Each structure stands twice: as C-alpha cells, then as structure tokens.
C-alpha cells in the first residue's frame, strides 16, 4: 500500500510537470497567449496596393500601442490589391471610420507592422467595416531602383551636353 502510494505520487507529479511544460511552451514562448479565451475583438479590412513582407500575426498599433493583430492577408483579383484582415481588441472601439492605415517597418530592416492614425469622423469602425485610406509598404528595392534610375539619368544628361558641345561651338563659329 505504502509503495503504491509513492508510485502514484511519482507518476502524478511527473504527468503534472509534463503538462505544465507543454502549457508553458504554448502560452509563454509564443505570441498566441491564451487566445482561446482571449479578449473580445472585432475585424476590419484594409486594402493596400502593396503589403511588402507583412506577415500574418504582425501587430497593429496606434500611437505605438498595440491594439490588434493581422489575421489574414489575401489578394483581391478584381482590384489587384492586397486585402488585409485586422483583428482589433474590443477595448479600442472608438477608432474613427476615416482613420488611415499605413505599413511601417520596425527598425531599419525589421518586420512590418500596421500603424493606424486616427481621423476626425464621428462614426467609429465596427466589425466588418473597411479602412479606406491606406498607404502601402515602403519597399527598399523600389527606392534603390528609383535612386539608380535617377543616378543613370543624371549621368546621361551630363554626358549628352558634353557631346553636343563641340557642335554648339562650331555653330557659333
């Protein structure tokens, strides 16, 4: 009797420890938290021309405070735009309908997140509404491409007058 008691005690504490470890892994090492019993939320959509490398699960913030997360990114083949589903915490339910959503980068090369800037309307976003004012992600490659294009154009402009110059001087003669 005594022996089976210590045995059961050992098994019980081992199983408890094991499940505690699995619980720790699912809730403490991931951003998932206890989303099953998570806070109430509502979903809004925003359409962007380009989302860059925005990922599902990226934070949505207002004035730097996290108010929700990106839950889905899809492509609208009629408008050729990216459709982003945002899940916002019910606690922040006074976001004006004319607020604008932009995609920002955390740090210089960090992950992307969505920043909301409040508008001035009297009506507020609710479940299913759409954010109309959006600004696409800042894509570094496009910027580099633009800089390079400008640079080569400038070079070509500098060379062109130089080649044209002798003729011009001849004409004046």
């Amino acid at each position, binding site marked *: 009797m005594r022996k089976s008691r210590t045995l059961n005690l050992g*098994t019980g504490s081992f*199983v408890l420890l*094991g499940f505690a470890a*699995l619980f720790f*892994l699912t809730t403490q090492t*991931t951003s998932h938290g206890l989303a099953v019993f998570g806070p109430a939320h509502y979903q809004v959509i925003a359409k962007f021309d380009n989302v860059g490398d925005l990922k599902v*699960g990226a*934070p949505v913030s207002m004035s730097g405070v996290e108010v929700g997360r990106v839950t889905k990114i899809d492509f609208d083949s009629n408008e050729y735009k990216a459709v982003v589903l945002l899940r916002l915490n019910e606690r922040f339910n006074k976001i004006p309908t004319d607020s604008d959503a932009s995609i920002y980068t955390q740090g210089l090369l960090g992950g992307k997140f969505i920043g909301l800037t409040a508008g001035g309307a009297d009506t507020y976003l609710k479940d299913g509404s759409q954010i109309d004012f959006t600004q696409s992600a800042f894509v570094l490659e496009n910027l580099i491409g633009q800089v390079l294009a400008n640079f080569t154009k400038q070079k070509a402009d500098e060379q062109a007058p130089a080649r044209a110059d002798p003729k011009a001087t001849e004409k004046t003669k």
Partner: protein
Amino acid sequence: MIGELWESFTDALEGLGSVVHFLFRLVGNTPRVLLRFSLISQQIFNSGALSLIIIMLSGLFVGMVLGLQGFQLLQRFGSEEALGTAATIGLVKELGPVVTALLFAGRAGTALASELGLMRATDQLSAMEMMAVDPIQRVVVPRFLGGVIAMPLLAGIFSVIGIYGAQLVGVQIMGVDSGSFWSQMRSAVSLSDVTEGIVKSFVFGVACSLIAVYQGYYATPTAEGVGRATTTTVVTSAVVILFLDYLITAAFL
C-alpha cells in the same frame, strides 16, 4: 549472390510487416487495457518519471550550449537579441523531440526490451499464457502506452529546461537584454512550431516504444538473444527517429 540479396530484402520486408502487425495487435488491445489504468500509470512511472533526471540534465546542458554558440554566432551580426528566438525554435522544433527520443530509447527503450526479453527467456510469458492471462494485454500494451504517454511530456520538459538553460547563459552570463530575449521570442515563435514539436515527440514515442516492446517480445530466449534485442532496439530506434524527423519536418514546411 542475387538470390542472397533478394532473400535479405524479403527478410527485411517480413520484419517490417510483422512490426506493423504487432502495432495493430497492440492498438486493438488498447481499449481493454485503458480500463485498468493502474497498469499504465506504473509504466508511465517506469519510462517517464525515472527518465526525468537524465532528460532534465541533458536539457539544461543542451540549452546552455545553444545559448553560448548562438550568442557567439549572432554577435557577429550584431543581433544578440535574437538569441531567445533562435534557441527556442531550435529546441522546440528539433532538439527537444529528437534528443529526448534518443535518450528515451537509451534509457527506457533498453529497459523495456531487456525486461520483456528476460520474461521471454525465463518462460514467464508462456506461464501467463498457461494461466489464461494474455501477456500482450497484461505486460506489453501497458508498457507501450506508458512510453507513448511519457515521451511528449519528457520532450516538453526538455524544451522548457533548455530554454531556461539558454536564458541562463545568454542573459545572466553574456548580458543579452532579458526583455528583448523574451519579447522577440514571443513575437517570432508561432503556435505551429510548438505543435510540430509535440507531433514529433508523440510519433517518436510510438516508434521507440513499439521497437522496444517488439524486440523484447520476440527476442531469442537466450542470454545472447536478450543482449542482441537491447542493442537492436537502440540502433533501430536511433535510425528510425532521425528518418521520421526528416519526414515530419518536410511535412510541416
């Protein structure tokens, strides 16, 4: 020459077939054994609780090495803060399940195989059959289920201890910021990473326990046979674990 090759090929196929057949026999007997849970609980103690010390110690040192190596590597790119993410993803997805399964095969698998092999060698299994007690139900299935239940729990404990080992080296000794260690980890590790680890450890648990009880149950009833069964258990388990690891990783990509 070709005849020999063909023979060894058919032998291997036959072995695989009899393992699968044995697995179905075990699963078929599972519902009846579940009613006598005390038998299983005793085996969870034997395979799980008794492996706890070696799992926890190995987890701590694996985590500490990850912390040290990860810090050295990430420092070159000036992103030491990603240490938490790197160590956690490495532990939860790969090292936790695989190293735990290898240790489990060495600690619990060999114990199962030699125990069952000795029972076979000393005719205890035949004696049970004489008393109309089904040795599969009374002896083999509880050991198999005990291993299957214990393995994911052990892998979870291994990963958690490992994360704290990495934290110990990274944050306490090397001076990575504790806040960014945990917050970067939380934003980068997703639930599917953890699920992958749990699925892996469960599959490894089934594979290790099955190989161990199969080798023990069908061991040649001699001293040499029991020894060979134990060796085969460890070797086969190690290869099968790494093979399954590749398959599951590919499936989750």
